[in-house]
Every structure is written in structure tokens, then in C-alpha cells.
């Protein structure tokens, strides 16, 4: 579900970047970046079985 929401949000930000005001696109991009970083941290839970 979170990825559907992320892709939807990206499509909306792209449309705003193409048709809407620039400051809104920049702000929403920042929110998107934070949301995707949070999603990464949520999914990066598997233990890395490294030998070094």
C-alpha cells in the first residue's frame, strides 16, 4: 500500500511540477523524499549476513 501511495504522490508532484507553482512542487518533493527514506528504514530490517 505504501508504494502505491508513493507512486501516486510522485505522479501528482510531477503534474504540479509541469502545470503548477514551483514552490509547491519543491515542498512536496521534500515530503516525498522523507517519506521514501522512512519507507526504506521500515523495510531495511533483514539482518545483513556479512563476513567482514
Amino acid at each position: 500500500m505504501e508504494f502505491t501511495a508513493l507512486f501516486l504522490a510522485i505522479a501528482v508532484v510531477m503534474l504540479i511540477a509541469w502545470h503548477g507553482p514551483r514552490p509547491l512542487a519543491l515542498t512536496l518533493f521534500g515530503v516525498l523524499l522523507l517519506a521514501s527514506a522512512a519507507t526504506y528504514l521500515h523495510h531495511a530490517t533483514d539482518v545483513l549476513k556479512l563476513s567482514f
Partner: protein
Amino acid sequence: MTRRLAITLNALSLYALAGVLAAAFAAQLWLHELPCPLCLLQRVQFAMLAIGPILNIRFGPRPSHYAMSLLSAGLGAVVSIRQILLHILPGDPGYGSALAGYHYYTWALIGFTAAILLLASMLLFDRQFEDRANSPIAAGPFAGLAVRLVIALTAANVASTYLECGLAACADNPVVYEMLQRGAR
């Protein structure tokens, strides 16, 4: 580098990103390999990479637009490195099939690294940032088509991930489209 040349290169970068997103779809549909959560997150970062060039085409090149793409490429590289490390031990078959000897997440790291190098190279050319007072250059059909293509592919990913995951968290190792499975029951 003139402003117009920079905008043309930005349009070309959108075609390249559209190619990456289309190739991911081709692997998903023809090879029936559903993307895992980390794979989807790499696609997300490739799509986010496109927002900077869209702004460059519409408002003219600005360092802040390139910075946005650099941040996306950096996060994408972190995600792909994480997935490479998950499968780095000898004997691990990796996730999904390999293309020309490399798995998709390795190709993704190569792609994000190339994007970082290209974006940093673009920032070397100051002339594109001059004449900002001039009105934005009207995007021609070449650039306009690139923008529409990348937006359409992102919208297709909305539908694809909804079919794959539904309203629940995506499976770690997905083998079926949850929503299609639910419809068949």
C-alpha cells in the same frame, strides 16, 4: 553550455528514465517477476529522479532542480547497495533473474551512480543558469512528450503496485498479484 542545450539534455534524461521504468515493467510482465519492496523502492527513486528535469524544462535549469535529482539518486544508491549486500554471500542466488550477468539491483546501482556523475557534470556548466530573468523557454514537442511519457509510466506503477500489494503491506517475496488473486476467489 547554453540554456537550450541543457534543456534538451534534461529531456533526453527523461527518455532514459522512461526507458528504465519501461524495462522494469517488461521484466515484470514478460518474465512474471514481481518486484520486491526494495525493488519497488528503487523504482520509486528512479521516478523521483525525473522531477528535477521536469522542473528544469518548465522553469529553466537551476542548481536546486539538479540537487533534487542528486538527493533521489543518492537515496536510490543506498537502497540498491542494501539489496546487493543482502545477496553478497557466496552461493546466494540473488533475487530474480540476472540480465547480462547482473541482477536488476546491481544495474540499478550502476544507473544511480551514472546519474550522480552526470548530474554533477551538468552542474559544472554555469552558463545554463544565466539569463534567469528571461521568460521560461517554451517546451517543444520533444521535451513535452518526454514529460508525458514519464508521468504515464509513473501512473502505470500506481496501478501495478495496487494490483500487486492491494491495501496491505507488500510481500517480501511476492509471487502473485494480491488483488487479482482476491478477485479470482
